[in-house]
């Protein structure tokens, strides 16, 4: 039996101070050009928590707005205010920085994260109000230490500072004096990833209503590496996060593949469940501090706010077939192989048209494609264009080439089978998976029957290979589901009305 998508969670953490102190664009600039205009202007472009709450793409990410609603809003979006600015959404939440710093401390099991006692006292009650936090997490938060000691650790012990509203409120200590893989910088990066994954796991439990004990396996697919100098990427983020999230019956492992990681992990999860190895597998990833403000220079130059100020995270719960939830179809898998090459058309063929061809399907048999869902508000001013749109144009061009759609229907294809990007540029976070939550809902509602999730990864960045990578899979309506097949009530009403009009016209013509 095919596995099903029981639910998904999507979370964001607003981390404006980490943009300044931990994003690689900024840390690099401080080394090569410490007096630059960019560094001087940057603080004036940082968004407030209220601004990120009312930012359209963020509200789509946590599920309060749909991709279709976003598509109807004229770009750019940074200067528009979403009519919903709730912190919580049906998929997750947008956590403010102060709570996230406390969560980081709760996720540290080696006494490396130190927070100022006054900061803890001021913000712990807010975290306690968070509906996904339970006593086991809150009990992990210490009373904090003296601010002067934190300042000393940062200035004398190489600790990585934790800032809030520009003030030093804590630090992450190095876990080893010599081992660079356990440096304060690496520990900070990894604990942020872990904390955002924990928040996603807790949110997934919350939104799906599963019992924590049901989860047997967790796959982490972020782009960080944890280990010491003898095993730099030893792992295992998955089990580390599952421990804090209270998934006591779970073990897990890490899957890596740059931005393609989540799609690889989803296919592995589906295979594990379909084979019967595990009944419930959760795929999760936390976010990436390095990418905060990655395109900040372009944004500042063009007078935009720093839009890459969110740490992202997600979790997808894959379970045995319940006859209701959408199925993952492992018979339609796209694979970019070693022999595929890097030509864009070869990449898209291997991921989209080749698997459909093998399954005897046309491009138009997929109702929605979810390739790389980067928010164009971020990428367009940075010179990377509209990434999802570029993917769609390629898919459409291939569909025309195959004869799946007529050239005249190109415009129709690029409105009906596509989505507008809303995910933050956190590497793996936007890659295919942001739509899974909405896809599940659209499939359950009978709005669509098949969605294709496409992940692509830039392996060459690791300097181990020049190859590109990617995999894709299809989510489809549950074969046992009674949901209406692709026609909504409105559409049925419309069809009947049209038929009645035509009937009336015929009668009138006959009467004449």
């Amino acid at each position, binding site marked *: 039996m095919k596995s099903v998508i029981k639910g998904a969670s999507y979370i964001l953490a607003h981390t404006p101070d980490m943009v300044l102190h931990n994003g690689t664009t900024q840390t690099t600039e401080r080394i090569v050009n410490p007096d630059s205009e960019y560094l001087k202007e940057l603080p004036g472009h940082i968004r407030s928590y209220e601004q990120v709450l009312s930012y359209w793409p963020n509200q789509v990410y946590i599920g309060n707005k749909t991709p279709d609603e976003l598509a109807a809003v004229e770009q750019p979006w940074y200067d528009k205010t979403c009519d919903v600015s709730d912190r919580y959404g049906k998929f997750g939440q947008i956590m403010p920085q102060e709570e996230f710093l406390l969560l980081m401390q709760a996720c540290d099991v080696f006494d490396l994260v130190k927070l100022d006692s006054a900061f803890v006292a001021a913000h712990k009650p807010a975290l306690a109000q968070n509906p996904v936090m339970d006593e086991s997490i809150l009990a992990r938060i210490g009373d904090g230490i003296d601010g002067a000691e934190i300042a000393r650790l940062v200035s004398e012990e190489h600790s990585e500072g934790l800032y809030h509203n520009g003030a030093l409120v804590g630090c992450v200590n190095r876990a080893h004096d010599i081992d660079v893989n356990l440096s304060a910088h690496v520990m900070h990066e990894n604990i942020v990833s872990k904390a955002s994954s924990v928040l996603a796991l807790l949110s997934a439990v919350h939104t799906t209503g599963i019992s924590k004990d049901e989860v047997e396996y967790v796959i982490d697919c972020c782009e960080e590496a944890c280990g010491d100098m003898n095993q730099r990427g030893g792992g295992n983020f998955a089990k580390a996060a599952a421990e804090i999230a209270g998934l006591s019956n779970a073990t897990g492992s890490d899957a890596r593949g740059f931005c393609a990681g989540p799609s690889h992990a989803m296919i592995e999860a589906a295979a594990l469940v379909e084979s019967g190895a595990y009944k419930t597998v959760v795929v999760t990833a936390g976010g990436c501090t390095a990418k905060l403000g990655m*395109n900040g220079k372009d944004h500042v130059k063009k007078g935009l706010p720093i839009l890459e100020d969110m740490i992202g995270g997600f979790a997808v719960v894959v379970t045995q077939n319940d006859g209701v939830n959408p199925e993952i179809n492992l018979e339609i898998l796209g694979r970019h192989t070693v022999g595929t090459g*890097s030509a864009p058309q070869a990449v898209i063929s291997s991921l989209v048209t080749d698997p459909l061809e093998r399954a005897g399907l046309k491009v138009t048999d997929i109702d929605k494609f979810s390739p790389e869902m980067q928010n164009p508000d971020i990428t367009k001013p940075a010179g990377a*264009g509209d990434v999802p749109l570029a993917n769609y144009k390629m898919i459409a061009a291939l569909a025309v080439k195959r004869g799946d759609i007529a050239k005249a229907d190109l415009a129709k294809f690029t409105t009906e089978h596509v989505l507008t990007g809303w995910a933050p540029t956190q590497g793996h976070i936007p890659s295919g998976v942001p739509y899974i939550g909405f896809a599940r809902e659209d499939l359950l509602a009978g709005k669509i029957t098949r969605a294709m999730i496409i992940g692509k990864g830039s392996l060459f960045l690791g300097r181990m290979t020049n190859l590109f990578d990617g995999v894709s899979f299809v989510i489809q309506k549950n074969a046992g589901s009674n949901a209406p097949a692709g026609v909504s009530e409105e559409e049925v009403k419309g069809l009947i009305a049209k038929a009645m009009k035509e009937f009336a016209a015929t009668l009138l013509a006959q009467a004449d």
Partner: protein
Amino acid sequence: MGILAGKKVVIIGDRDGIPGQAIAACATSAGAEVVFSSTECFV
């Protein structure tokens, strides 16, 4: 005379444009020697 034949070519491709390897194949076909090929990523 062409621009590329016999020249040393340095390639700066783009993950969301044309990747380095694809450009390298073209440059080689024009008789150039590819001395460096890289692909940048902004996402």
